[in-house]
């Protein structure tokens, strides 16, 4: 067990360093922040001095080493554009992104699973055909388009929901939440739906396929032979076994939700990390970009690690395999 965990941890560290390295490498090409810092009228002497002060004149690997050793301590320096601590900027934006991702994931699960079950059980009816067709739309429409359409219909034409922002937030320590106010819920609705639609349709199609698979297995036939009610068979036996892969995928997709919230956040002016990142890119604000990418990598790696460990706990075959095999 310990060896397994250690092995996974080492893998995680290697992945993190690689991501940081690639991110850092890319930033060498996004542009020169010094021009922005000093404005249009800087003399070459001023530019060189600032480059020296910021350490931008050092060789690439030296810069990378400084960056890495600071990053390990959670320190990413000051944002070049905003003059504020990067760690603080990220901490301010993290709650917005996490809340959005969690609400979207919940939506996707709560709506996606029943729809999938329905589509599997009522296979061939016009309603389930319609669900499948609509879901295809959900998978193939780009997020920004969905967002704009939702804004057009629900904010401009109907006026039911606001088109941008996060509404009123309540501070709880360093965490700001919009989930305790009516305004906050009104504001999160459209972005959460936008972000959820892809996941929702994915989950629905996954549940349907898995469910159909499970319904064909022997133990379902035996259950029917035992004279159990349809209800017990569908929800007690079939659905339970369907959910294992669904939950795995959902867990992994959570990382994706956080990372790909960038587009949704931009469309809805949602003040999360994605919006911060987009603005950092426009201004070549390297510390912010680096911190964001490393954090996203960390989230992915952490989720993967947890999933791996859960597998280990859930699936006895993994343990047997390590001991000696068949």
């Amino acid at each position: 067990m310990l060896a397994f965990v250690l092995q996974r941890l080492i893998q995680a560290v290697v992945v993190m360093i690689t991501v940081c390295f690639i991110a850092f490498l890319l930033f060498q090409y996004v542009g020169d922040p010094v021009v922005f810092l000093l404005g249009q009228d800087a003399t070459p002497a001023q530019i060189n001095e600032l480059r020296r002060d910021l350490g931008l004149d050092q060789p690439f690997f030296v810069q990378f080493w400084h960056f890495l050793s600071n990053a390990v301590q959670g320190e990413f320096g000051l944002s070049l554009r905003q003059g504020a601590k990067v760690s603080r900027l990220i901490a301010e934006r993290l709650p917005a992104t996490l809340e959005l991702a969690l609400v979207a994931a919940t939506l996707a699960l709560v709506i996606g699973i029943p729809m999938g079950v329905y589509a599997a059980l009522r296979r061939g009816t016009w309603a389930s055909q319609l669900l499948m067709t609509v879901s295809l739309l959900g998978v193939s429409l780009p997020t920004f388009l969905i967002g704009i359409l939702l804004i057009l219909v629900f904010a401009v034409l109907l006026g039911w929901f606001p088109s941008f922002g996060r509404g009123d937030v309540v501070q709880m320590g360093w965490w700001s939440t919009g989930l305790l106010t009516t305004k906050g819920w009104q504001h999160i609705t459209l972005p959460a739906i936008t972000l959820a639609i892809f996941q929702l349709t994915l989950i629905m199609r996954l549940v349907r396929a898995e469910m159909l698979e499970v319904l064909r297995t022997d133990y379902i036939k035996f259950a029917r032979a035992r004279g159990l009610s349809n209800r017990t068979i569908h929800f007690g036996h079939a659905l339970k076994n369907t959910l294992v892969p669904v939950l795995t995928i959902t867990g992994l997709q959570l990382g994706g939700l956080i990372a790909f919230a960038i587009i949704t956040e931009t469309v809805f002016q949602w003040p999360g990390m994605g919006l911060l990142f987009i603005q950092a890119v426009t201004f070549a604000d390297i510390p912010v970009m680096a911190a964001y990418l490393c954090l996203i990598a960390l989230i992915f790696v952490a989720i993967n690690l947890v999933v791996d460990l859960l597998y280990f706990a859930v699936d006895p075959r993994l343990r047997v395999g390590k001991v000696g095999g068949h």
Partner: protein
Amino acid sequence: MNKWMPKNALISAMTLSLALAGGLAAGSAQAKTFKWASAGEISTWDIHSQNNALQNGLHAAVYESLVYYNSRTFKIEPMLATSWSLVTPSQLRINLRKGVKFHDGSDFTADDAVFSLNRAMAKTSNFSPYVVGFDRIVKVDAHTVDIITKGPNPVLLRQMTELRMMSKAWAEKNNSVEPKDLKNVAQETFANRNAMGTGPFVLKQWVPDQKMVFDKNPNWWGKMEGNVTEIVYTPIKSEATRIAALLSGEVDLVLDPSPQDLPRLRSNNNLRVIDGVENRTIFLGMDQHREELPGSNVKGKNPLKDVNVRKALYQAIDINTINRVTMRGLSEPTGALVASQVDGWTETVNKRFPYSVDDAKKLLTQAGYPNGFEVDFACPNNRYINDEEICQAITAMWAKVGVKAKLRTLPLVTYFPMIQRYEASIYMLGWGVPTFDALYSLQSLTRTVGTGGDGNYNVGRYTNTRMDYIVDRIKTEVDFPVRNRLMTEGLQLASDTVSHIPLHNQVIPWAMKKNIDLVHRADNRIDWRLIKVN
């Protein structure tokens, strides 16, 4: 209105009493909120840390300068200074307004003025363009200061419009004596996130990327023409969302609607679009220094050094088509390097060389390129209105006279360092004139590259001895009629020698609800004191 934030006591008392008197006092004296949006978020509230147009405009509502441009006439008018006079040609004596209070209730005095001007001159300040030529600041008495300049400075007052006043005591108490220190990577200054000035509005709350809330300053020294008591600024990056917010009524004004939305907005009965010419001129520059242009098929010489070639490129551009098709009318074609509000501009210098494919071909033949030539052409793709599209249109127009421009478009973060390394053969640039004085353009764009701002954006390295003489004269000439004549001569010389190819001045439309009444300023700023919500 936000219910979660503590309010300024006075305002809330006022609102409460108004709410109680609701039925009776309906109409004129109610609390009015004005909400507006644009794409950009500002990066700091430190008034000297960064020189950015949107940011300067917002800062100006909270921190006032000694003098400012009148929003209607664009003449200098007194703000925190009441009068000024030259003691000697290089010593300006300024009398400060008495009885002005900062938002925390303390008095504005000469100490604050000296402190603020020195802060703008600090090493970490980004406001060096506005303190060029300043030698030192001297306090004369509690309400008088002298600005000592290194020599006569005819644009001193214009520079002062962007030098805002901060409280010395407040800055000292809050570790903000110097603008943001980039070398001190661990420490963030207090003034970076907080603001405290003398202005007509008080910054109540700033949540980056969400909103900025301002309350009317009840103790402001001036008389407010408008009727707004609260202002909310929201940055909305996505164009479509910004317009949606206006259509749904969530904001009252959008500062930067996208050109393709304008016809729809103009035809909407609830909305109004007002167009104003910005004093930013878009032009093309050409490398006139290197002996051979990389990427060109002309070897051993630089065709752009020949004035006939530059003129041919100029005359091959059909500026009216660009105005009509590419800009959808949102441009004012120009033959001068500055817009009409700028001192030195005249009708004559604004005349363009006429569009003529035949003339262009003839000029190219005279210059020895009857079949044209190949040349590199670089453009930004996210800096000016339709920048990339303009360059594509020009590339097609040049092709008609045989000039094969190899267009490369870049985002501004890589574009500007590239042209500043003198790597572009033909490039696009837009130049705004915060001083409303042609020196700002002539010195940066046409003066031979030198020190102290000379030719700092002359990235085509144009050089002309007469031009250098003119620029150096107008830097210190304080006889205004003479100075204006010289500036006009400089603009004419730039035009005659085709130092650049001027294209147009940007026209900036603002879209707002019908019930909003305000003034469109040529520097694309909203004067909050004049906003009326009807």
